[in-house]
């Protein structure tokens, strides 16, 4: 009934010093290498974007010469800003369905106010966007309503507000000179506005990685109860995530005016919601919360923008483009989602 081999270690085991874990037993060894998975989690979104871009360019070389990347960057700017905000809300495990409507509402207000208030209008819009975000956050945190349903409601209200403020027509900003440098100037061939988005992404990344509030956001996303029992201000964390989402939405609204000089309820920026969420997820954000890399959202936004542009540049039949869009998005996400919590994918 007893086995031979098992008795052997008994002789020496009790004498083995307690700290001797490196030689035997379930020890990972204190210094772990980066696994291939970790590397892919970090560079996946970039790699997917580059692969798609190279594919388009190799089939249609003129796309590169014609400033294809610049076009993609310009068109990705608003999506990127909305996606960054969405990423922060997803990071705490919630969702903000109203942030795209918030962006458009801000754009409409800005178009109305820019002529009379100039720079003041921009500040006004930043405040409005943030306040809307804070309101969302407060309702979610204090009334304990699911963010999905709540922000769906806010979305409806903001849409109606946009129609009322714009008087159901297109509002043309009287003087956009303040904003022309956004898309009028470029760095490394890409519009300044896009670089602003990149800088914000890096700032958010640094916030999440190196600061105490950032750590709180992550803790709330990973395990809100655990965070609460560690004295983390979980409500404040949620409210700040929604506030950031609102702030970034208002910046997206500003970029819409910078790009189009006008705004209307059905015009530019009226359909940022799904691309924004998609960009965040293609950028490796986990919808379950706690895993977000804002820098990768930049590549997520570029990828989401590139797919329809690339399809058009390749001259794909228009009836098939929607099919292609759907499939490529699925493949891109299959390649980039965090596999850290594989097994429970919902």
């Amino acid at each position, binding site marked *: 009934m007893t086995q031979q081999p098992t008795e052997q270690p008994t002789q020496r085991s009790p004498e083995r010093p307690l700290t001797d874990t490196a030689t035997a037993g379930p020890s990972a060894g204190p210094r772990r290498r980066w696994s291939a998975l970790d590397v892919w989690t970090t560079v996946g979104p970039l790699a997917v974007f580059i692969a798609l871009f190279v594919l388009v360019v190799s089939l249609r070389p003129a796309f590169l010469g014609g400033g294809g990347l610049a076009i993609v960057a310009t068109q990705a700017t608003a999506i990127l800003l909305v996606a960054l905000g969405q990423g922060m809300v997803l990071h705490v495990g919630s969702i903000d369905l109203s942030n795209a409507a918030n962006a458009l509402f801000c754009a409409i207000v800005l178009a109305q106010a820019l002529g009379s208030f100039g720079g003041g209008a921009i500040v006004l819009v930043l405040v409005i966007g943030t306040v809307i975000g804070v309101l969302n956050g407060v309702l979610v945190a204090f009334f304990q309503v699911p963010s999905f349903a709540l922000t769906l409601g806010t979305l409806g209200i903001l849409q109606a507000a946009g129609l009322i403020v714009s008087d159901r027509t297109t509002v043309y900003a009287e003087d956009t000179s303040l904003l022309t440098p956004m898309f009028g100037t470029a760095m490394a061939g890409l519009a300044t506005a896009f670089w602003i988005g990149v800088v914000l992404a890096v700032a958010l990344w640094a916030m999440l990685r190196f600061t105490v509030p950032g750590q709180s956001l992550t803790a709330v996303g990973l395990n809100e109860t655990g965070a609460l029992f560690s004295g983390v201000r979980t409500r404040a964390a949620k409210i700040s995530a929604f506030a950031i989402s609102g702030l970034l939405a208002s910046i997206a609204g500003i970029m819409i005016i910078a790009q189009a000089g006008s705004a209307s309820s059905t015009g530019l920026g009226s*359909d940022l919601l799904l691309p924004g969420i998609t960009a965040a997820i293609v950028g490796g954000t986990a919808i379950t919360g706690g895993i977000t890399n804002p820098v990768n959202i930049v590549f997520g936004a570029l990828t989401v923008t590139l797919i329809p542009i690339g399809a058009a540049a390749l001259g794909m039949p228009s009836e098939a483009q929607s099919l292609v869009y759907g499939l490529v998005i699925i493949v891109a996400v299959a390649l980039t989602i965090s596999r850290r919590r594989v097994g429970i994918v919902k």
Partner: protein
Amino acid sequence: STTTGAGAGGTGGSQAPIANEDLVLVASVINTTNPYMASMIEGAQALGEKLGVEVQIVDSAGSSQTEISKIQAILAQGKKVALMVNTVASSDAPTIVNAVKQAGGYVVIWWNKPDSLEPWDVGNNFVAFQKYSGVESGQCTGRALAESLGGKGNVIGLAGVEDSTTSQTRVAGFEDALKAYPDIKLLEVQSANWDPQQGLSVTQSLLTKYPNQVNGIWAADDAMIIGATNAAKNAGLYNDIKFVSDGLYPPVVDMMSEPNSPIVGETFHRGFMAAAIGLYTAYLAATGEIDPATLPEEKRDSLFKLACVTPTDFQDYTKWDGDVDAWIDTLIENGPWDTEPTPLVGQGPEKLPGT
């Protein structure tokens, strides 16, 4: 006519004429499944075939963002572009015009643009803006509805997307026409977003809101009237209500063909005509056959003729659908501004009645 002012090389003609093989005709439509949009695509392709120039279709999928991105992507392909775009929202126009101008292409905009953006302020690259008068459409069908009711009764209206100028002008024309009929009461105008499904459910709700009161239904276009007529059929009221709308889509032609059809008024214009006229105008500018700078303003901000269709003469218009190619031939022969049944009739921007 001005059609053959070949190589006039006027003052604004900053660019050399472009050869057919360096050119690509691009038609940008809001979606590919609305029958009107499908007709636009058909017209663009037929014209391209006739002219021997490559055609690309941009499907905006209802999104300004997609529209602008895809147009820019095509501009980035390298070839020179002659573009006809049915803008998703009027605010897209400046961005598209600027992009085309930068790429040295030529653009004609259909249906939507801001009133303040005039082609002659931009230059030759923004060749023209074209549309059918919305006010006229609304007046025409409004009058037909009121007449069919004998100047007495209750009507409801279905508008398109809230902030669409096309819908707004048509509604304004409709309301204006009703002023002449004091005994016609406009119960309500609701938006159904150009969507047949929403046309159905909004009509359904309004019919129950005003039980046995609705005598007539006006819709800003035929997609919504398809929903409205079905709602009436479902409610068993189809033959008790009069319908009018804009576009004379083939399904509506079929309904009008039935004996005692309750469809009492329509307007006729076609997507393929709009697309071909717009694209051909851009093509002429690109190839240097016309010099936009020398054109009169009515040819650069244009209103085309829209036919008021009655239950007695609607058959006259079905002939155009039968042979698109033959119509394209007459277009090339007569030029964009003089082709039946939609010659140029006036200059924009369109004024709302009473203003």
